[in-house]
């Protein structure tokens, strides 16, 4: 005979009973750039404390912060990793959903590197090169024109004679924002395109948007996946140039050749001193309301920013994180559980 009713009642029981189950592990989601560091900390945390190893998911900074701001409660994540600062809009969403006290923790800095296939020619870039290569509109002889360049050597005779093909992070990645800010916007200003855009009758906002507008003729390719996908695309397209995190490059030096930016070779040292221009701080955000409710949350956060882990000689620095020179003040923020102020628009 079939006892159809029994599994059905069992399901009903399970559905009714589980809200009572307290979550005893920390849940983290967000930036795929911060993910490796978070897994290293989570693993060490599980080994050294009596709490279970935290669960760390990826998904991208934007997706992580969106989940973070969904609300407070045991079925919401405790921490969002982000490779950029929280935006004003996200902060407001958080507030509206009851996520009011948020602790912002800066864990260090990460470099963004431009790399090509190991056996290809070497590149020495400046932000101007990248703006001219990828912007939808550039300035040529004082005129704003649709991007005519197809070859790096057309932009600068010093660059190799190779067609332009770039694989850059998609818009859901925090890395994209840094790329836009430190490379495209900087290049826009340096080539005089910003002035030319304004001179051509755009207002300032429209001109800034035009600086970040990328060409759509297949030269610039958004990668929405992770760096492994970018690497696979480079291997399929030997003339391509990809954007990677420093840590990823350092794990794949046998296949990638890194380009200099404004004559500085990216390394943890050159990023720490600020010489290498394309770097950004990495963050994670903690729900203050979860501290004391989720076991081990405070301990995990404190452990993350401790000198043993995030310090200049810790395992995170070994993996490629540039240690924060102001780590002590970050540790103080965590110890005091100081909530962040609303970010500027």
């Amino acid at each position, binding site marked *: *005979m*079939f*006892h*159809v009713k*029994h*599994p*059905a009642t*069992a*399901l009903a029981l*399970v*559905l009714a009973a*589980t*809200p009572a*189950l307290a*979550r005893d*592990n920390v*849940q983290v*989601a967000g930036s*795929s750039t911060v*993910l*490796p560091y*978070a*897994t*290293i900390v*989570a*693993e*060490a945390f*599980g*080994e*050294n404390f009596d709490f*279970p*190893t935290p*669960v*760390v*998911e*990826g998904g991208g900074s934007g997706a992580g912060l969106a989940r973070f701001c969904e609300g407070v409660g*045991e*079925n919401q*994540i405790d921490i969002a990793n982000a490779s950029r600062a929280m935006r004003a809009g996200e902060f407001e969403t958080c507030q509206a959903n009851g996520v009011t006290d948020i602790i912002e923790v800066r864990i260090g800095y990460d470099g963004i590197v431009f790399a090509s296939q190991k056996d290809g020619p070497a590149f020495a870039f400046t932000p101007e090169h990248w703006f001219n290569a990828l912007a939808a509109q550039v300035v040529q002889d004082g005129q704003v024109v649709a991007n005519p360049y197809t070859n790096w050597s057309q932009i600068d005779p010093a660059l190799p004679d190779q067609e332009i093909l770039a694989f850059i992070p998609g818009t859901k990645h925090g890395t994209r924002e840094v790329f836009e800010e430190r490379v495209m916007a900087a290049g826009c200003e340096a080539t005089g395109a910003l002035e030319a855009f304004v001179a051509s009758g755009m207002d300032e906002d429209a001109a800034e948007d035009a600086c970040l507008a990328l060409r759509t003729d297949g030269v610039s390719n958004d990668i929405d*996946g*992770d*760096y*492994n996908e970018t690497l696979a695309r480079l291997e399929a397209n030997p003339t391509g140039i990809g954007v990677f995190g420093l*840590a*990823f490059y*350092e*794990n*794949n*030096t*046998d296949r990638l050749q890194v380009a200099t930016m404004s004559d500085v070779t990216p390394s943890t040292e050159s990023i720490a001193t600020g010489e290498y221009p394309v770097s950004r701080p990495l963050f994670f955000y903690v729900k203050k309301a979860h501290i004391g409710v989720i076991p081990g949350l405070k301990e995990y956060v404190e452990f993350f920013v401790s000198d*043993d882990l995030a310090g200049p000689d810790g*395992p995170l620095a*070994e*993996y490629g994180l540039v240690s924060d020179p102001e780590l002590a003040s970050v540790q103080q923020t965590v110890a005091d559980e100081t909530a962040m102020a609303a970010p500027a628009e």
Partner: protein
Amino acid sequence: MTDLPAAGAIPVTPSPSRSILETDARTRARNRAEARFRAYGLGALLVGLIFLVLLLGSILWNGMGAFTQTQVTLPIELLESELDPEGTRDPAVIGEVSTFGYNDLIEASLARVVADAGVQTELDAGDLTDILSSGAAAQLREAVLADPSLVGQTVTFDLLAASRVDGYVKGRVTRESLADDRNLSPVHLDVVDQLRDAGFVSRGLNLDFITGADASEKRPEEAGIGVAMIGSFYMMLVVLGLSLPLGVAASIYLEEFAPKNRLTDLIEVNIANLAAVPSIVYGILGLAVFIQFAHLPQSAPLVGGLVLTLLTLPTIIIATRASLKAVPPSIRDAALGVGASKMQAVFHHVLPLAVPGIMTGTIIGMAHALGETAPLLLIGMVGFVASNYPGGVVEGFTSPNSAMPAQIYEWAKRADPAFYERAWGGIIVLLVFLLLMNLAAVLVRRRFERRW
């Protein structure tokens, strides 16, 4: 008068003199067409086979490395002064020393072994430890906490080699590829070579890969698929426990009892449609219903199992209905004819005959569910999740875990190329499970199926 002309009216044409031994043009054309068709069929089969061989070959080629692992056998002096200065041998006191404290012990012991073995190197003790996994300290700490009496003794440990050393021993990493590497230098490989000659470095079967937990990005050498396998197991329990009874009950009702009207037609069409819904949709549904509405725990195999149940149900219903339909009506009629009620006819006669078909459908449906990753993405089962063994059966359902295909996907994303090898190794493990399940389905069908 018929339409047929009289026999005599047909002009008698002399029948063409042809032999059955000689084929005419049209027959030859037909034969050629058949030969061509056979060649196409054989060609299609061959192309398929070549792809299969290439696929299996590349999986085995890339993945077999994950099943062996390089180890460094080291006598480690567990100094009392470092671990338990007071001499209490109390696990709580020894537990105060974090894994960072054990690194110094490993450093000293490795330097001593290297010096004793007469290895010539310019590397200092701190750099030498790069040939070991950073998980070595945790391994020591665990052993000491489990048995505090080890403190003060010299114990020989089999420590994992770092992923790049492991890659070197397996031939994946060469001195050239390490030229720009920050993690390991070619000089380290010289030390590894000499230690290997001295018998300290060996490559052996890697059972930890099959039984172990996931590890962080810095320690690919430690990562195993065991915990994810347990997660998959609990999910399959949920799928079996829910979708089999629900699916069979629904099919019996629809096939044997339900009136044939518009409503049941609509239900039937929808079941067929559900079977074709992309699996990620079930993931979104699971997130909305099970996690956000029913407040079930995130990343739990229970939720994963529920989502996969939704995915498997249509498959099982369709297979069950087909096998119920295949039972000849004469069986039902005979049962009803000797006075059985409708329910008795179904449960005593029809259902037992349909069981082999139901079993086959269920096993195929489960195999499908076992290989699903997409719905798990949305309910938090993809990521650095499978790092704790569940504490018991209840925890097996509710504590965060991953699943085999999700673990493979996660490894394939990571930066260190050693994880890539693990991903292929994981595929081998997953394929073995799928092969076994499909084999079981074939056997059940062969052994029990009846034909009329």
